[in-house]
């Protein structure tokens, strides 16, 4: 499939400023966002379980230029939502899709490696359809792909690009999303949840990688997190302010989040910030039967309304 995709990229390249995909990364376990401008650059294109990053995050930067983008199913939903919200123009993007078999979660690889070996010590790796083998110094360790695949892939409804101009490969069957992750979290009592976030958020360094990795954060340089007018957050190093930022992010993403999981993945200190957005996504699905990033013609549920809301059970007083 690699070669077919490379072919599709080369075909698209003459019409666009660049094609965004994945290329070699700084270490064997990671690829990097890759911006291809020349046909010879396409040789280094990488796809597969290491094509982790969501390239859609870069699209709004290219407004006014035509670009190509290679997308996994989840990435394509970001693009669709960007188009739905006018952040990206459909005619300015050439979408190359393929059936995705899931990507790895480097933290899960770390867990498989055990206490004494860090992912950074891996010198090379090889991937087969359901196994991943890493070499650390002279020893090799093989793990099941199922054990290291990102959580979002386990409940992926759209493994194929939702919208594409070029599609390479045979579409894959989607899975269902029953929000098992939220259900598992909700096993905790209200007090336990409070304590959980108190602990988790305490190590947040306010780098805002969660925000900047989000393809639907539109404010970019003007986020309220650091503004004084309006002054939603103070600059003290407190759990409350850090948590509040997550709630701001989740509120702003409510009904818009496509679940690409980049916020959680980007977090350098491993805070599961995606849970906030997942909660909102589930609520949007239950209340408004809305799934962001599946149809560019729809309006996000919080930017519209219905005079009768049969699903909102208002309290009787």
């Amino acid at each position: 499939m690699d070669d077919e995709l490379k072919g599709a990229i080369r075909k698209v390249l003459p019409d666009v400023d660049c094609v965004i995909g994945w290329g070699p990364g700084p270490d064997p376990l990671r690829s990097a966002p890759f911006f291809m401008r020349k046909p010879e650059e396409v040789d280094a294109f990488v796809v597969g379980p290491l094509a982790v990053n969501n390239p859609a995050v870069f699209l709004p930067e290219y407004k006014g230029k035509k670009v190509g983008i290679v997308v996994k199913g989840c990435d394509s939903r970001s693009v669709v939502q960007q188009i739905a919200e006018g952040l990206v123009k459909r005619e300015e993007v050439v979408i190359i899709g393929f059936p995705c078999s899931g990507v790895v979660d480097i933290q899960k690889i770390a867990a498989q490696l055990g206490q004494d070996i860090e992912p950074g010590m891996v010198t090379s790796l090889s991937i087969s359809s359901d196994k991943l083998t890493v070499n650390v110094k002279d020893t090799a360790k093989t793990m099941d792909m199922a054990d290291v695949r990102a959580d979002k892939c386990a409940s992926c409804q759209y493994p194929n690009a939702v919208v594409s101009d070029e599609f390479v490969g045979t579409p894959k069957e989607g899975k269902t999303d029953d929000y098992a992750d939220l259900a598992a979290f909700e096993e905790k009592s209200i007090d336990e949840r409070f304590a959980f976030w108190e602990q988790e958020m305490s190590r947040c360094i306010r780098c805002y990688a969660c925000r900047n990795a989000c393809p639907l954060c539109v404010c970019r340089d003007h986020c309220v997190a650091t503004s004084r007018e309006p002054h939603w957050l103070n600059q003290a190093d407190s759990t409350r302010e850090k948590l509040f930022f997550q709630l701001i992010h989740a509120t702003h993403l409510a009904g818009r989040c496509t679940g690409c999981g980049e916020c959680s993945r980007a977090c350098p200190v491993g805070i599961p910030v995606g849970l906030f957005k997942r909660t909102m996504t589930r609520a949007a699905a239950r209340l408004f039967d809305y799934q962001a990033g599946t149809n560019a013609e729809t309006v996000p549920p919080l930017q519209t309304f219905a005079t009768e809301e049969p699903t909102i059970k208002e309290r009787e007083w």
Partner: protein
Amino acid sequence: MRIGVFICHCGTNIGATVDSAGVAENAKSLPDVVFATDSMYTCSEPGQDGIIRAISEHALDGVVVAACSPRMHEPTFRRAVERAGVNRYMFEMANIREHVSWIGKDKEANSNKAFELVRIAVEKLRRNRPLTPKYFPSTKRVLVIGGGVAGIQAALDCADAGIEVIMVEREPSIGGKMAKLDKTFPTVDCSSCILGPKMVDVAQHPKITLYACSELESVSGFVGNFEVVIRRKATCVDNTKCTGCGLCAEKCPSKKSFDRFNEGVGTTTAINIPFPQAIPKKAVIDKSFCRQFVKGKCGVCAKVCPTGAISYEQQDELLTVQVGAMVAATGYDLVDWKVYSEYGGGRYPDVVTSLQYERMMSASGPFGGHIKRLSDGKEPKNVVFIQCVGSRDVSIGRPYCSGFCCMYTAKQAILTKDHIPDSQSYVFYMDIRSPGKGYDEFTRRAQEEYGTQYIRGRVSLIYPKGDRYIVRGVDTLAGAQVEVEADLVVLAVGVEAAANSPHLAEKLRISYDKFGFFMESHVKLKPIETNTAGVFLAGCSQGPKDIPSSVAMGSAAAAKAIGLLSKDMLESDPQIAQVNINRCVGCGKCINVCPYKAIREIDFRGQAKAEVIEAVCQGCGLCNATCPQGAVQLSHFTDNQILAEVEALCRC
């Protein structure tokens, strides 16, 4: 900032349950507060003078008054601080009366809460900015919704003042309920004699455009510049050609049509002119009875019409008009009395409503002024009137008094005697309510001169006996059960808001109470205004009232509209949204949600940005709550102001 705080006692209204002096003392601890005092009646002249004096003596540039609701006196105090040279928006109120002193007697808790409300007012005020209104031109045209006597009065007064009027009437003719009345109390004037000329004036006034058979489709815009879409319903008659000759009605074969104007007393033709004095005097086809529509063939009226005015293909027409102000005068309807099974629930032909009885008595009614029973056409001798049918009855959700039933019942009793000198009237009543000039005397006349029997009590059952009816009730004064044999029973059916009033209120963006009557801005002091600037109320749309009150209210609404439109430029409320262009990312979410389309996208040095159209923005703040980066801020209710209020409540 230098803030002065004034804590009102409002006599004992606040002072009895709030330690106003203590709150003032505590207020001195609040940031930027350099002056604090308590005063007996802050809104009084000496009270306002105290504020003005303190502003100059203490060089205040912001004022907090803790007193009644800002919905009551905010404008008063804003004017006061402005007189002292402080911008009127550098003022905040803490509501320590309606929200504190009046809802609890615990002085400690009340005083503490009052202080907290002062604290948030101070924190908000610290973040207020002086605001200056802008001015915009207005459309000098008034829309009057409803052509009853209140609407007619409003329309004529506006038109006489030189302001164009558009009148929209749902029915084929204006005149409303008054046009259906035979006589009016307490003078027993002929209703159509006093109303008719006014209706003609409406038709003939060069400043008035009348749309009958029309309803309000939608309203957009705002005070001074409303855009109204009117739906002109298809009457199948071309009004430009119809001369009102009535030939069509004469020849119409469908003679069993329901007679709306006569309240179903008798029948009419499918094409008809509702009554001889109808304005406009144009024929109208009732499609539910017209054979052309029911059976698909007939066409008699089209054949006989000398001017070819009949057009079965006519469609509803939508008409857009610009107006500067609106008067809602949509009147009332009768309660559905058929819920009362004890009165027969509609099964007895000779149990009629008061309004039907008016038509039965009217010389222009179906019986030509001769009262007769609907069942057998006989003249009734014993007539029983039952009051409060659907009024003052909590069990059917109509707890209010309809106001004028006592009076018209007395009138109808008197008229009954006039029409049928050997008749006897009985009135079952709860209380006789007759406050008004000559009103009480009138009810006495009914009893004393006309021998009407007033029985204080409720009727428990009406049942037929032979061709008469037995009305069984209780005489609470005698403490005995009574039974009256009646030939005719007239129910004084209570008043409810006109059908679809809530729907219209929603279009007008005004409030309505749980009965559907429109809400005035203030029960006492702003009975004509609504909470939507430029929309005024007249007549029974606001609540039950009699003819003189409706007429007075029509004039009052006209005066308000004239006053509003007498200015060449209207002042806009500066509490509107503002875009910080540096922070705006041009995502367009605010544009999507604005209910007024008051935000547009502009190109600013090659970047998309949002811009508020100041004259259109109404200051709801929806955009502010929508903008993720807070680039749109509602002046006077900015994020920082509300956050400061929240922080003041949570942190302290």
